[in-house]
């Protein structure tokens, strides 16, 4: 029987209360959202917080997906299931539904949250890749006020984020453009498993050329954002050959390791194929004529 090491428990019934508790308890405290990452880690003693601040009661306050001008705002406690079922996201940022179909299983998706997923910052984690590809911003709050962090500044490498001990993530903001679309491709061995490799792509087209692009490569090293792939795309006309070239550049630059999910060479190959497919599908969704 695996149980976490002993800890003290507090329950926050508002964001304000959670922030007060974090300010008081400092580095000894950890927030508990859906628990599907933190509790398994605590059972294995990979995490041994002295205090747990349970934010389960914030599910309603921080559970929303809303369009707001040129962005979609997503509350940090929004569950995988709500992301999967959101018609707004399926229409404007379809990469979310693509990824959510493959994240964990329906039972985990009922309670696992986007805030928990991003703050876990596992390099195999699918929503970090989705938010990286989309160039999302994370709103982080403490008693002192709010900071808005671009995904690039938020994600500090495996299991590390820019969120300080007295802060919590409250909202994710996904920028919207009229001529944008996105897609996600993942290979896993069975339902509910982490990616062997995966790739997310977002494209913005203006005047027939790629005005902006985001490529995220998953489970192939500590860098999720692929600068090499992005640079290969910017300013050029969308074409299948270009997508393959950019995907190959990304695959060449990533740093996979051999483990029980596959060899480094296989993952490098797979992630290149997936990135090219994701770009192709994003373009298709924009109804682009791709040569």
């Amino acid at each position, binding site marked *: 029987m*695996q149980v976490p090491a002993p800890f003290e428990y507090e*329950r926050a019934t508002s964001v304000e209360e959670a922030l007060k508790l974090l300010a008081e308890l400092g580095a000894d405290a950890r927030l508990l959202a859906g628990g599907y990452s933190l509790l398994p880690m605590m059972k294995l003693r990979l995490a041994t917080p002295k205090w*747990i601040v349970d934010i389960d009661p914030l599910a309603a306050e921080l559970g929303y997906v809303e369009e707001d001008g040129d962005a979609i705002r997503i509350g940090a406690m929004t569950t995988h299931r709500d992301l999967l079922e959101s018609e707004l996201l399926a229409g404007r940022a379809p990469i979310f539904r693509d990824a959510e179909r493959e994240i964990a299983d329906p039972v*985990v998706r009922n309670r696992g949250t986007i805030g928990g997923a991003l703050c876990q910052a596992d390099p195999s984690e699918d929503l970090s890749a989705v938010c990286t590809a989309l160039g999302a911003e994370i709103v982080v709050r403490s008693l002192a006020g709010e900071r808005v962090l671009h995904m690039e500044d938020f994600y500090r490498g495996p299991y590390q984020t820019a969120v300080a001990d007295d802060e919590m993530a409250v909202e994710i903001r996904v920028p919207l453009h009229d001529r944008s679309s996105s897609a996600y491709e993942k290979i896993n061995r069975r339902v509910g498993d982490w990616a062997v490799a995966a790739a997310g792509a977002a494209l913005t087209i203006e005047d027939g050329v790629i005005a902006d692009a985001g490529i995220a490569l998953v489970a192939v090293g500590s860098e999720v954002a692929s600068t090499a792939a992005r640079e290969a795309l910017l300013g050029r006309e969308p074409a299948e050959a270009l997508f393959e070239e950019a995907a190959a550049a990304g695959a060449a630059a990533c740093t996979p390791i051999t483990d029980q999910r596959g060899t480094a060479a296989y993952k490098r190959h797979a992630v290149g194929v997936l990135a090219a497919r994701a770009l192709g599908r994003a373009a298709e969704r924009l109804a682009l004529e791709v040569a």
Partner: protein
Amino acid sequence: MQVTVNVNGRDHTREVEPRTLLVHFLRDDLGLTGTHWGCDTSNCGACVVLMDGEPAKSCTVLAATAAGHEIRTVEGLEVDGVLDPVQQGFTEEHGLQCGFCTAGMMLTARALLDSVPDPTSLTDAEIRDAISGQICRCTGYATIVRSIRWAAEHPKEEQPA
């Protein structure tokens, strides 16, 4: 700490350690051993219970967290001696062999049937997707899918008011 958890419509108050997991609270503190626990790593789904009507892995929920929710376990499926159609379906269609996965499977089935206006319209693919987070080592799933379909086709008779 003291927690009060509503299980199958009744409040239960117990003194527990904060680290007590819901599955152990149900089994050891309340004696409701119908909920099983298997992998301990959040993978197998043997421990699935309903939290406010939705399946959750009770090995990955603190009893303290559950205090804010209504919990339903396999013991809560039968009402006044009448089996839930899902339980009948598992009997009719041989939905179990060893029974280890069965409580979780039946609760997920109940939630699935409750989530759609017309359960007979559910496809096999949708049923399989709903139980995809739960492992059965015995049946090969085919009879579980048939059992859930049986329940979909034999809804609970409405009690006269």
